[in-house]
């Protein structure tokens, strides 16, 4: 995941510019290269969309709110700790107040009695906000197909990313976070004002 095309693209650019500044970089033969990014074609300055810059900043400084109710929460602890270290993705600052959080991470079985509380936490979060359902229980009720358990948190709040597993390993949780980052990076400024988004919230009876 770390040898992303963007890095390779940048080195191509440097090689091209080496004609001007006199630096050459060795690029192995047979390597497929991407086109030079649009914003660095000019001389000494770049052009991009504000939306993209804001998206980049938001994606790399997520404040997650861990809503951990069972064993998936234990996996999340491992995800936060040194071996996996969610801090590498700019999300090491956990927010235990929903009003400061960007990302609601629901990890574990949600009993029907817990449903209204989860909903209230979601409503208290400020826009823009994202939700990730970690593990089988949060995603679908999991093995708890029973009268007391909510059959997936998407019965009460909208969900952006589902992470499968029972429980999912830290790698899977990281993958879910990366998916969330992609969503954040590519989100339009107008999405939260759009009729589609309002209709989505209304379908959950929120606002």
């Amino acid at each position, binding site marked *: 995941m770390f040898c992303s095309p963007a890095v390779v693209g940048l080195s191509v650019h440097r090689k091209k510019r080496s004609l001007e500044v006199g630096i050459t970089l060795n690029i192995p033969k047979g390597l497929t290269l991407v086109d030079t990014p649009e914003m660095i074609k000019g001389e000494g300055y770049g052009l991009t969309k504000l939306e993209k810059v804001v998206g980049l900043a938001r994606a790399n400084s997520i404040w997650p709110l861990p809503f951990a109710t069972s064993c998936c929460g234990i996996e999340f602890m491992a995800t936060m700790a040194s071996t996996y270290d969610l801090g590498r993705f700019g999300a090491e600052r956990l927010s235990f107040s929903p009003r400061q959080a960007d990302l609601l991470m629901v990890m574990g079985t949600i009993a029907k009695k817990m449903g209204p509380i989860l909903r209230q936490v979601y409503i208290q979060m400020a826009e823009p906000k994202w939700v990730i359902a970690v593990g089988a229980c949060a995603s679908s009720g999991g093995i708890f*197909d029973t009268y007391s358990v909510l*059959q*997936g948190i998407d019965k009460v709040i909208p969900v952006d990313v589902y992470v499968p597993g029972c429980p999912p390993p830290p790698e899977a949780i990281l993958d879910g976070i990366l998916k969330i980052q992609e969503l954040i990076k590519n989100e339009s400024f107008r999405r939260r004002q759009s009729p589609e988004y309002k209709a989505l919230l209304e379908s959950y009876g929120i606002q």
Partner: protein
Amino acid sequence: MIDNNYISQAIQEQFGEAVRSIELSYDMLDIVLEKEVIHDAILWLKDHKVMQFNFLTSLCGMNYPDRKNEEMSVVYHLHSLTNNIRIRLHCFFSEKEPKVKTVTDIFAAANWMERETYDFFGIQFDGHPDLRRILNLDDMQYFPLLKKYPLEDATRTDKEDKYFGRS
């Protein structure tokens, strides 16, 4: 020190006809009483000078749908801390009138246990100070541990029986 023989004899002398059966299972006395005397029996066992069953370990409900007119049951586990001996008391009654006298006036600990039993089996405890649901949603419309209800969530929409071996 008292033993199981002493307890079963004492109970039989005291309650006579109201004792339906006394069995020994896994070294523990299992006594079935008429539901009319169960409250008095627990009080008598607690206040008894020798036996002193002064601790209510557990209280729960049971449902036997195949037993005609005694589908419901309440089980009491008593512990004599002074003698370090335990017994189990039962009473059976019909699901048409699932009602039994509360023991909260004897053991305050029975309060939540009776609420739980009501919550899951719908058994009414006469004289309970605050008989309402304790674990399930307050607006739940049924008593989920009765055998006539399926264990699975009836509101599920995304789970097909055939994928769960239930077809």
